[in-house]
């Protein structure tokens, strides 16, 4: 029996079908990413698990129990919101302690667990600050600590990194992954950022128009996309002779598909090429190894091996 299972989960807003019969089994300790463009139903799914939105049909079971019969306040889930939703009138320590207070944890135990959790997210020195006095990244960690301190059954992350700048986002991805591994909490991440989903999760659920297009490990979904939508959403693709080929799988060889370089863009660790061929425009990504590369206007031969 799966730890958490969504069974035919459906949500209609008027005539609009936001989530359409989504079924998913999540194992204990697993990190799942719900990935898709805005309006694909990923956030609605998260809100149904949290209990803020009631499903039109379907069931959610946690260790076999019917989660929908339990009030949101009693579900014991840890949620990190996109806006963090910290309590601005409380200090960091008070924010983190709030959930424990609601559970009726004794004051001494509360202080101990708050300190432990703040150490886990690297904010032990900030317990007396107010959220307003902290940076976006620090507020994010407070939100994470507040969700984790109650030892939730499931950790729900709603676009948690989307308000951070690119560099900080990468750092937080690594840290989030480490923290999740340390505490081992089953985690569901909602994101529209394929890089984030692939970097963090054990399995990805690629969603489109309320349905799961593919459920699987990031590597598998990337290498063997089930549908053209998945292929396109998880990265750049070329459609050559009816086969989808990832740009980084194509290289320049002595012979092969003949083409002329239309544009060449240098991106530090790699070169991005657009090559005009008889089969249309082909995107090629080549690692920057320091060697000289074909210039714009050069005639090149493209080679790739077709995936089995």
């Amino acid at each position, binding site marked *: 029996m799966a730890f958490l299972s969504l069974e035919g989960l459906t949500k209609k807003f008027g005539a609009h079908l936001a989530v359409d019969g989504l079924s998913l089994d999540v194992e204990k300790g697993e990190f799942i990413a719900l990935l898709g463009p805005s309006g694909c139903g990923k956030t609605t799914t998260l809100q149904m698990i*949290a209990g803020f939105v009631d499903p039109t049909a379907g069931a959610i079971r946690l260790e076999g129990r019917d989660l929908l019969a339990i009030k*949101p306040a009693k579900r014991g889930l840890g949620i990190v919101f996109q806006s963090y939703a910290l309590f601005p009138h409380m200090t960091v320590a008070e924010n983190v302690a709030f959930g424990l207070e609601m559970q009726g944890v004794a004051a001494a135990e509360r202080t101990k667990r708050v300190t432990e959790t703040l150490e886990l997210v690297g904010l032990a020195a900030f317990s007396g600050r107010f959220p307003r006095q902290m940076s976006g990244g620090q507020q994010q960690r407070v939100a994470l600590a507040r969700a984790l301190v109650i030892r939730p059954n499931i950790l729900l992350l709603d676009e948690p990194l989307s308000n951070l700048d690119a560099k900080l986002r990468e750092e937080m991805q690594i840290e989030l992954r480490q923290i999740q591994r340390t505490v081992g909490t089953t985690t569901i991440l909602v994101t529209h950022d394929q890089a984030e989903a692939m970097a963090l999760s054990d399995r990805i659920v690629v969603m489109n128009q309320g349905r799961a297009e593919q459920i699987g490990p990031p590597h598998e979904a990337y290498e063997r996309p089930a549908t053209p939508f998945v292929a396109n959403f998880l990265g750049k693709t070329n459609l050559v002779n009816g086969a989808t080929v990832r740009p980084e799988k194509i290289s320049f060889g002595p012979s092969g598909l003949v083409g002329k370089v239309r544009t060449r863009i240098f991106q530090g660790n790699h070169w991005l090429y657009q090559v005009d061929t008889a089969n249309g425009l082909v995107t090629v990504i080549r690692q920057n190894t320091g060697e000289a590369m074909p210039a714009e206007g050069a005639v090149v031969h493209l080679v790739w091996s077709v995936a089995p």
Partner: protein
Amino acid sequence: MRAAPYLLSLPALLLFAGVVIVPLVMTVLLSFHDWGQYKGIEPVFILKNWQEVLTDSYFHEMFWRTFRIAFFVTLLAAVLGAPEAYILNRMKSPWRGLFLLVILGPLLISVVARTLGWALLFGGNSGLVNKALISTGLISTPLPFMFTETGMVVALAHVLMPYMVLAVWAALQRLDPQIENAAVALGAGPFTVLRRIVLPQVMPGILSGAIIVFALAASAFATPAIIGGRRLKVASTLAYDEFLNTLNWPLGAAVAVLLLFALIAVVVGASRLVERRYAQVFG
């Protein structure tokens, strides 16, 4: 070009000085002049009016009553207005717009017409308010509303309610829409969410609304004049009477100036207190 900002604001400054500062200074000066039944106003410098206002228990009672009424109006406006704003904020259109209009309604009606309406509702022992209260069993004998502080508080709270509702509503608008869900997910019940999460965050709004309502209630004229009449005077109706009935302008000026300065002291003191209390948290 450095002078440009000052030159540009000069017309407004001149207007302000002309219509506010000059009459105010003249009123202050007037309060030091002498007055007699037969000699009228004498432009001399004496402290007689101020001595009278500050030592006579009659004036103490007036000012004490004025601020007592303002306090209860503020309290009533906060107790009713804050929940009203919260409910309004949770309504969906078109109800929100409709009820906002109902709340702002009092501001659209002439203060005299509105207060006369209250006078009709209160009127005597067979007034509609008393009839309604008796028929619901809340009271057994009619309550006096006309010429009482109770009546004044009710009528003033009604007209000043919109200021409180709007101030609280503005504070509610700044609330993170997810914050209540965040508290619920951590195990808080609806009452705890209101008391521990929503109320502390709208408190600055309630306090700034309270400052506005208090200032307007303490300086209100038409409502106390109609509901209280000449039997139950407050500072503003007292000043009016001194000016237009007794014709003792200097004494009326002293009352008016004292009311102004007392109000400034209360409002400035309160808002500095609020600012200091919340600067750290809400920046």
